[in-house]
């Protein structure tokens, strides 16, 4: 076995008075893919940031090639070839894709920037990742998964000896995940040490050589991947036995609560029509960029659109989100950081933002807000070391839970959830699936947009599939299976018989 290149020895980390890492040990070896798994808030991101020099440990040591090392700045780590992809995007939104990829490491011809070369290499990197974005596009115009690919391209553009990736696949579909894994394989062969986190345990099983499990800031288990089944991993993470991930599917009633007729969003969605019944969980599948998000946003009044959206017989005016909310229709965004949460504000302020009028008029009843927060923390198992902290300091998964709580606060009748479990640990996922089932059982109707095939299949009774901005088909009942969905998503099977069953 090769010597570790980078390791942690008894590392502790406190934020203010709260210690979140209680003595973490583990080592990264060249040519090895090491998976770090654990529940939301277990300390994975914190551990990674310490390794990459973005945070300093309060106690213990970071050891690089056998010597203790202290990074004064992430630059120093980067100079040693330690590269990290953060869980949250680190892209300058106003800059173009290629400008971001080479930010801080611009290529030059003399004193001048070498635009051509940077663009060429960016294109090359993106192509290697099978990502179609034009390197000249401004980052604020590309989709969330594309941003992730840009992040990956940015990391690949640096000469990494250690590559640390914090949930790189959370926002990717299986297809892109495949592409990423090919790259990981390639790097592994080149002798790069790779640290990787994911809540998708099947992925871990597939790609990792070694697995370390964190629970509450403590390392509970570490070993070669062969020693773990997916079930073992989940149990080690959560600290208890997990029952079935998916609750039994609810069958929707006959009453149509939401009718979408010929909705188009210029350049993104064309003539989409669908129905949603009371008590139903409807899935929307498709590849990245197929326009699912745009369709959902158009329905929810967040985008200008053509076509008709009717909630229980009443037409919703386009582009009017408050009308949609009033009609009982809400949308949970896939863009947590950009559109979901106010990162500098507290949990309470975020939770009640969409529904402030319910919390007292004209004066907000603070106690009622606190009560709502307590309930949300309990219902959604939000782990916040401190109730008064800024949401940006929550772990990624806990932010997602808060976003869910916020969206569902108004007790909506129709919920469109875009990537509901993005970055959520397996234990909580189960809770959220249960919650969705419960909502349906209460007679609410849910649309789930998900890039996780098992999630779609496990939750939805009926799945609508999009390709290139158009709805290419619908499957239901026993037809809800991976093969059918993938075919439709690739645009290979648009015949009506697909929907017949």
């Amino acid at each position, binding site marked *: 076995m090769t010597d570790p290149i980078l390791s942690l020895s008894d590392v502790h980390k406190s*934020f*203010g008075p709260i210690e979140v890492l209680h003595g973490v040990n583990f080592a990264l070896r060249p040519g090895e893919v090491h998976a770090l798994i654990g529940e939301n808030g277990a300390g994975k991101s914190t551990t990674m*940031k310490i390794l990459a*020099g*973005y*945070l*300093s440990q309060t106690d213990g040591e970071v050891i690089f090639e056998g010597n203790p090392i*202290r990074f*004064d*700045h*992430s630059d120093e780590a980067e100079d040693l070839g330690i590269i990290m992809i953060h869980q949250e995007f680190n892209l300058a939104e106003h800059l173009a894709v290629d400008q971001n990829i080479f930010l801080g490491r611009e290529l030059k011809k003399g004193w001048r920037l070498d635009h051509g070369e940077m663009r060429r290499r960016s294109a090359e990197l993106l192509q290697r990742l099978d990502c179609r974005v034009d390197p000249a596009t401004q980052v604020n115009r590309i989709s969330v998964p594309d941003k992730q690919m840009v992040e990956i391209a940015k990391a690949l553009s640096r000469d990494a000896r250690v590559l640390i990736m914090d949930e790189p696949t959370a926002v990717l579909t299986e297809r892109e995940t495949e592409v990423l894994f090919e790259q990981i394989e390639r790097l592994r062969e080149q002798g790069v040490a790779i640290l990787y986190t994911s809540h998708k345990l099947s992925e871990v099983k597939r790609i990792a050589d070694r697995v370390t499990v964190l629970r509450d800031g403590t390392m509970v288990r570490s070993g070669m991947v062969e020693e773990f089944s997916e079930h073992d991993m989940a149990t080690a993470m959560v600290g208890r036995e997990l029952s079935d991930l998916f609750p039994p599917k609810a069958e929707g009633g006959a009453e149509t609560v939401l009718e979408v007729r010929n909705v188009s969003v210029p350049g993104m969605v064309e003539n989409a029509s669908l129905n949603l019944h009371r008590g139903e969980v409807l899935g929307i599948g498709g590849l990245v960029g197929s326009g699912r998000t745009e369709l959902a946003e158009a329905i929810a009044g*967040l985008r200008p659109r053509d076509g008709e959206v009717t909630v229980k017989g009443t037409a919703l005016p386009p582009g009017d*989100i*408050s009308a949609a*909310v009033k009609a009982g229709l809400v*949308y949970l*965004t896939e863009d947590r950081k*950009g*559109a*979901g*949460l*106010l*990162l*500098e*504000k507290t949990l309470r*302020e975020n939770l009640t*933002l*969409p529904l*402030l*009028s319910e919390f007292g*008029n*004209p*004066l*907000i009843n*603070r106690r009622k807000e606190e009560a709502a927060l307590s309930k949300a923390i309990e219902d959604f198992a939000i782990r916040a070391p401190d109730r008064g*902290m*800024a949401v940006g*300091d929550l772990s990624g998964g806990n932010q997602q839970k808060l976003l869910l709580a*916020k969206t569902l606060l108004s007790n909506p009748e129709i919920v469109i959830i875009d990537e509901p479990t993005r970055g959520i640990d397996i234990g909580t996922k189960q809770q959220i699936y249960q919650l969705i089932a419960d909502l349906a059982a209460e007679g609410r109707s849910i649309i789930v947009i998900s890039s996780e095939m098992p999630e779609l299949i496990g939750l939805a009774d009926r799945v609508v599939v999009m390709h290139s901005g158009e709805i290419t088909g619908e499957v239901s009942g026993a037809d809800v299976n991976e093969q059918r969905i993938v075919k439709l998503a690739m645009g290979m099977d648009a015949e009506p018989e697909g929907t017949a069953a």
Partner: protein
Amino acid sequence: MTDATAKKPAARRSSVNLQAIGPVVALIVLVLIGISLSDNFLSYANVTNVLARSAFIGIIAVGMTFVITAGGLDLSVGSMAAFVAGVMIIAMNAMTERMGVTLPVVLLGMLIALFSGFAAGMINGLLITRAGIEAFIVTLGTMGIYRSLITWLADGGTLSIGYQMGEFYRPVYYGGIAGISWPIIVFALVAIIGEIAMRHTAFGRHCAAIGSNEKVARYSSVAVLRVRLITYALLGLLVGLAVVMYVPRLGSASSATGLLWELEAIAAVIIGGTLLKGGFGRVWGTVVGVLILSLIGNILNLTDFVSPYLNGAIQGVVIILAVVLQRNTGPAR
């Protein structure tokens, strides 16, 4: 270990406290300097003078706090005040001719001032929210427009309220109840209501949300455009209110009225701890900021400093120092 992120929570907590007391400390220091320089500093007359004259900028700055918190800016308030004062005076003079020196004329005059301010604010707000033009440009434009209009209304000179009417209206600035003069009372009320609105109402929350991240606010079904529009209209209304207190003080308006008030109001807001980029606002901080600015002028008048030419320099230094006190170390933009 230099990493800023690492220190953040600790720094954040302590900096919140420091930020909170920063301007207050500066204010206290100024008061102590004042006391040490002159026995009359704490006299009833001086305290009343300083507070009453702070009222104009103060009332406007409270409105500015909302605009800035919501990520906006208004450079036009100074000229708007001059313009509104001009309109009010012309209207009152015209009405006095017909109705004599009577209370209804004063009340109507006040209404006209409030309404003109509100309308002017609405115009700014509509251009910003509906036409989608950068607030800086819109209000730079209207700043020039209102300043021109008052110059034109006054024919390059001064618009004055009739002498009799002036005397009749005077008590609105110089009078008061229980020894507290009206401008102080009105300023205090505006500040208190403003503070409550900022911290305890949906409107205040929405302003902060919009300033913090407009897209998140929109996705949270906050009526972004409407809230933003309201901040400008509200600021206009408060400019009108400031004018209602200002006109009885000087009884006139000219192209020199309200000069640089916008800078003073914005400075007071920022000194008070509101973020210029938006997302966080503090009305009581603004009040402290206004008082700091007023006190600098007052203290400079208490003694003979080196040269009156250098007043501006001292003012500049104090403004910077007042803010140094509240920022700990972390570099800002």
